[in-house]
Structure formats: C-alpha cells, structure tokens
C-alpha cells in the first residue's frame, strides 16, 4: 500500500503547479484551468486522508468540491464571455479598471 504521504506530496506538487499557472499565465481561461487543477489536487489529498482515517467524510467533501467547482466554472466562464464581449480580450493584465 502506497503511503498517504506519497499521495499528499503528489497533491502538493499538482497544487503548486496550479498556483504557478494562476500567477504566471495571462489568459483568463488558463488561469481558470489552473484553478481547476488546484481543486483537483485538493481532492486527491482529501481522498488520501479519507482512506487514512477510514472515514467517508473526506469523500463527501471531495464530492462537494467537485460540485461547487462545476458551478464556479459555469459562472466564471460566463464572466469571461461577458468580459470578452465588451473588451474583445481575455488578457487579465488588461483588466485593471479597479486600480486605485
């Protein structure tokens, strides 16, 4: 049986990759996909912990995260479409109207 730590490390690596995607990519869609990757990494860690503790609560949370992610993606992509309609761009560096 593979140790839980191994899964956690894998999950961490994927999470950090997702983080770098969020930080470094300029396309809003890619930023979004990176967020999804981070969520996936989290799910992996939750599943690993669930097995570790023999409790199904971890699975429940992973289930909820997947569902929320679906909702989030729908709303996020709708935002992107709306922004694209007005600005003809999805480059997040061009979206800084909130600058103080």
């Amino acid at each position, binding site marked *: 049986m593979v140790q839980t730590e191994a899964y956690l490390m894998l999950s961490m690596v994927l999470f950090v990759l997702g983080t770098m995607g969020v*930080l470094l990519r300029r396309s809003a869609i890619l930023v979004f996909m990176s967020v999804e990757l981070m969520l996936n990494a989290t799910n992996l860690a939750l599943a690993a912990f669930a097995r570790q503790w023999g409790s199904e609560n971890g699975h429940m949370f992973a289930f909820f995260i997947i569902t929320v992610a679906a909702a989030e993606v729908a709303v996020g992509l709708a935002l992107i479409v709306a922004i694209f309609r007005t600005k003809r761009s999805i480059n997040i*560096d061009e*979206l800084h109207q*909130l*600058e*103080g």
Partner: protein
Amino acid sequence: MENYAQLVPLIILIPSIGAFINLFVGARLPERAVAIIGSTAAILSFVVALLLYSYLSGGGAPVVVNPPFFDGWIRVAEIDISWQMRVDTLSVTMMMLVTGVGSLIHIYSAGYMHGDPRFHRFFAYLNMFFAFMLTLVAGNNFLMMFVGWEGVGLCSFLLIGFWFDKTRGVGWRNSLAARKAFIVNRVGDFGLMTAIFLIFWTFGTLDFYRPGEIANVEYAAHHASAAADDGHAAASDHGESASAHGESAVGAEEGAHGASTGSEVVYTNNDHIPTNQLGVFGQAERFLEEHHQVDFGPFSLPIETVLVLITLFMLIGAAGKSAQIPLFVWLPDAMAGPTPVSALIHAATMVTAGVYMMVRSNVFFYEADLTSLIVTLVGVGTALVGGFIALGQWDIKRVLAYSTVSQLGFMVAAVGIGAYSAAMFHLVTHAFFKALLFLGSGSVIHGMEHGHHAVSHGHDDHHDAHHQEEFDPQDMRNMGGLRHKMPITYITYLIGTLALAGIFPLAGFWSKDEILADSWLVGLFDNNIGGYIALGGLLLAAGFTAFYMWRQVTMVFYGSPRHEAAEHAHESPPTMTIPLIALAILSIAGGFINVPSGVLGLDGIFGAHRFTDWLAQSVVHAHAADFQALIALGALGLAVGAIFLASNLYGRDRAVVNHRDPLQTMATTAPIFSFANARLYWDEIYNRLFERPFNWLGKFLADVIDWRFWHDYVHDQVIGKGFNTIARLLANPVDLGLIDGVVNGIGALTKWVSGGARRIQTGYVRTYAITLLFGVVVVIIVLMLPLINNGG
C-alpha cells in the same frame, strides 16, 4: 321584605336612566312624554324609597349594599374605597324626603315649565339632580358623598342658569347667579375635601360603617333587650337613655356576648371587630377611648384636636352647601332659577346636604366641643341675619330665599347644640312647608305672568316689549288681593306660612319647639353657654320669621290689586295645585311624626318621639327633649304677636303706596328697613373685602409681575439677550472655528491617508493573487515551525 334593601342601587339607576333618555332623545319627544318619563323616574325612585322604609320599619337591620358591577371602586395600594350604599334610617329618611318632595315637584314642573323651549333639558337636569342627591345620601363613604355633593352642585349650577339667556329678577343675569353659586360652593368644597383628606389620614378609610358594624351600640343593645322583654315600651326607655347620654358604654357590658335570637349570634356591639376593620365613626370612638395620637409626620396631634379640625373643615363645607355665614350669599341669587328648582334644590333638599353631613358625622361633632360652639354661633347668626334681611325684601322668592337661609341656620344651630334628631326633624318639616311656599310663590308668579300676558295683549301689541321690561312678576308691590283670584294657592300658602311661623299644631311648631327645648335643656343641664345663645337667638329669629311671612301673605293675597296684572291673574292648572295640596297636607301633619311626650295626650295618639327613636338606629347621639311648655308657649306667643304686628302694619289697605313699605315711611324704622333691604350690604362688603383686592392683585400680577417683570425683563432682557449672546459665541468661534476645523481636519487627514493607501490597489489580478499566496506561505511556515521542533 328581607331583600328590599338590595333594591337601593335602583334608586340611583332609575333617575339616571330618566336623565339619559331625556337628555339624548328628549328633544325629539313631545312635552307630555318628557314629563311622563321624568316624573315616572322620580315616582319610581319614591317607590323604591318606600320599599326601603318598609324594610327598615319592619325591623330590618341597617345594611351596606354592594351594587352589581361596582365591586370595588378605587383600589390603589392600601386605598380601597368601595361603591357601597348604606340603608339605614338616616339615609332612608333623606331618600324618602328627596324622592317624595321631588316627585311632587316633578309633577308641578310639568305645569310650570309648560311651553319652555328647553323643557326636556329641565327634566333631564331634575332627574340628574335626583341621581346625584341620592348618591349623596345613599353612599356609605365620604367619597361617594362627595361625588353626590359635587354632582348636585353641578345640577344646581345648570338649573340656576337654566334661563341663562334671560334677564330676570332684580337685574342680575341668571348666568352670573349660577356662577356665583358655583364659585361660592367651591370655597365650601375646599373645606369638605380637606376634611375628607384628614379623615382618610386619621382612619385609613372613608367608610361610614363597615358591613356588619353596628352604628348605635346603645340602641342595638336596647333594642335587643326590648325584643327579649317582649313589648317593653321602647320610647320611654329611650327617654331614660337620652338623659344618660355621654356614657355610651352603659349597655355594652351586658350586650358584649350578643343576644342570640334563633340559631345565629346577633351582635349588639362591635367589640368583636378589630379597630382597623371599623368605619370612621367606630374607629373614632375607639381612638377616643385609647387617647390615640394621630401621626402627621413631623408632629402628632391627639385625636380630640384632629376631630376639632375635621369638624371645622366640615363646617366650611356645610356652610357652602347649606348657605351659612359667611357663604350664604349665593342662595338668594340662586332664586334666578325656575321656581320648582328653587323649591326642590334650594329649599328642600340640596341645601340640607350640609345638615345631613353633620348629622351623619354626629360622632365627630359630639366630641368636638369647640366646633359645636362655633357651629351654634354660625347657625344662630345665620338664622338672625337671614330673618332680618327677609324683613326688607320686595321680591316674593327672595323673601323665601332668606327665610330658607334663616331656617337652615336653625338646623345648623340644632346640630351645634347636639340636637341632631331635632335638626333632622326640622329638616324634614322645613322641606315640606318651604317646598310648599316656593311652589305657591311659583303659582303666584305663574298667575301674575299670565295676567300680565292677558293685559299686554289687551293693549297695543307695540308696547309689549317695553311692558315686559318694566314689569316684574315677582315684585310683591305689584300684587295684592290674589286671595280671590287664586283660592287654592292662597289656602295652601297660608298653611305653609303658619307652619313656617310655628303656629300650633302645624309641622313647624313641633320641629322648632324641639330645637328650642333642646337648646334650653342643654343650657340648663349641661351648663352649655351655646344653649342659651341658641335659645335667645333662635327665639328672635322665630319672631322675624312670623313677621316677614305674614308681611308677605298680606302683601300678596290681601288688600286690593296694586297692578293690573294682579287683577287679571287666575288660578294655576291642576298639575300645579295638586302638589300644593299634597304638600299642604304634609305641612299640617308632618309634625306629628315626632310629637314630644306629654302634650295634651297627643303622644297617646301618635306615639312620642317616634322620629327620634327611628333615627337613633343610625344617629348615635340622637336624643329627644321633653316638652317644655314654657318655651313652647313663649315661642307661640312671640309668633302670634309678630303676626299681629305685621297684619297691623300691612293689613291696612293702601299701606304699600308708591312702592314704599310702611316701615320706610316711619322715621324710626326707615334706616332699619333700608339696612335690611340692602341685605346688610353683605355683598358690598364682600366686594370690598375680596373682589377688589382680588382684582387689584390680578391686575398687579398681570401688569407688573407677568408683563413688566416676567415678559419685558426676564424674557426679553435676560433670556432673549443672553440667548443671543451665547448663540453668537457658539456660532462664530465654537462652531465655525473649532467644530468645523475638527471636521475639516478629519476629512483632510482621511484624504491624505487614502491617497497613500490607494496605491496598494493596483487593479491587476495577479498582484492580489500573489499577495494571497504570500499569506498562505507565511501561514504554512508558521504552522510548520512546531513540527520541525518536534521532529528535531
């Protein structure tokens, strides 16, 4: 029979309903219906009073009745005042008097007020007066009495000013007379209220007697033993106890355990009731035995002193309502009201409320010697002053008004010398013949007005208004010779006059004689100076009475008519004459309810001291005087002499010439007559003493204090200018400088800080994200530190 006492709430309820009906729908009803409603309410009340009488005379014990829906009236903390009614001989006597005389006057009013535009309102007021007067006499506590007291005052005000839109009589406006009566009565009410406050403070209750309490212990004990002895002559026994009055505890020892008749224990005294459960009078007697000190916070007074204070304040109240010196001035002016009102309210019933109150409180007055003396002086003084002024009046009702003042003085003097039953006796008989006289005078005025009406219609109609202004139907100088025009009125009036003058064997003779005999006995046996003063003063007043009454009869009915209106006067309708006849019969027979013992064997026919004996159940210090033949003969002789003198002076035809009294024409008597005619300048003295200083003070307060000092100086100068100065100070340096500076400074500071802080908000998503990541890393490292230490 047993339950008749429970009917007593009806006696108030029925007139109230009558008043409401007449007040709210009376305007739409025909006159006849209004009269029937009002009279029926009055007569039903009388029937209730008769039922109550039959209850008591059938041996019923005095009871306190709680009307339904009035369970508890005023309950605040320790104050618990119930709306309770007391059925005892005193209250039932007053009820019968009020409802009986009142019913007759209702019937009379239906004729007298015929055609008046406010007919329904008159009857509503009369019924309202009934309700309040019966509240006054039926109440079992001083507060209920006070409610009735104020209520009858209100009705009196409304009825004096009933013709507020007319100018009548000697030239004052009726509304002014009503106001005068109301205001003078307020002075008395101040006294009564103070007395009530003092009573409440002293005894913690206002109830006369509590349910189950026995008012007259001595009487109850006597009654029980009399019942046990089966047929023992109660009246003669009572005579003995009367001579032994003052030792009220005599019968208490034997009756202490109560005489058991049947299965129930019937208490004949109050020894089983704790002091704080007794009514005010029972408590007062206990307090007197204990020499109780009444605590007034910073000081305390012995109960005797407190009783003197209470009774003095009560006297002020009684002086207001019962028209005694110094507050009698309202009563003559109150004659501005319709004559039935004068008869009912201002002669027979309401004005006797003060006497009723004092008799009700006889326990207090009996113990307060100082007050008793003052009461005697006030009563005698009032009797003399009223009698003297009556000698010089022209107005037929005014003479009767001063006569009423004088007779009320008799009653009050009787209270002062401790003859409470005599006072009540005179109250009752006086109600009969004074109501009779007033109604008779009303009949005369009615006849005069109709005669005048006929005369002025016979003449040119254009002079009508002019005529009415000059002609005064109440002025006796315009009358004369009415004996033939109005025979029934004449005969009944004559009976009333003789009764008032105290001619044997009419009602006034017996009641007046009882007062005189009592004062003589009090002076003789108790060594009480008040008794002699009362005897002398009242004898003189009785002489005055006979004189002015015969003067009046002569001027009105004898001789020849002095005005064409008198020639055309005619007898009044039966609705007016029937009450006159009824009252005349009462005036003749009324005295026989209290015939003293040993007079011509009359006591064998009527029984001696019946009324006193009846009252003794509820009046602790009631006692009967024996017949004093000397006094009675003296008073009778005086009265006959005065009548002879008056008939000599006025009986000659054309004695009253050019509106001048025979006394005016004689040089020796002219100043006396003018003095009496000017009413002793009493109103003028009051005008000087009170009205002018009052007006001056009012003007001073208004002009100097309020306007010049308060308005011009304090408001304008001090407050206004000071306010302006402070406002200017606050506006310029404080508001503009300090507060605005602070506010603007805060604004500028915020602007400066936010100007720097806004640079953090770059608007670039990635900067926010990396800030977040930075935070995450820091948190994880902080969380990691203990793990590293553990691992190490």
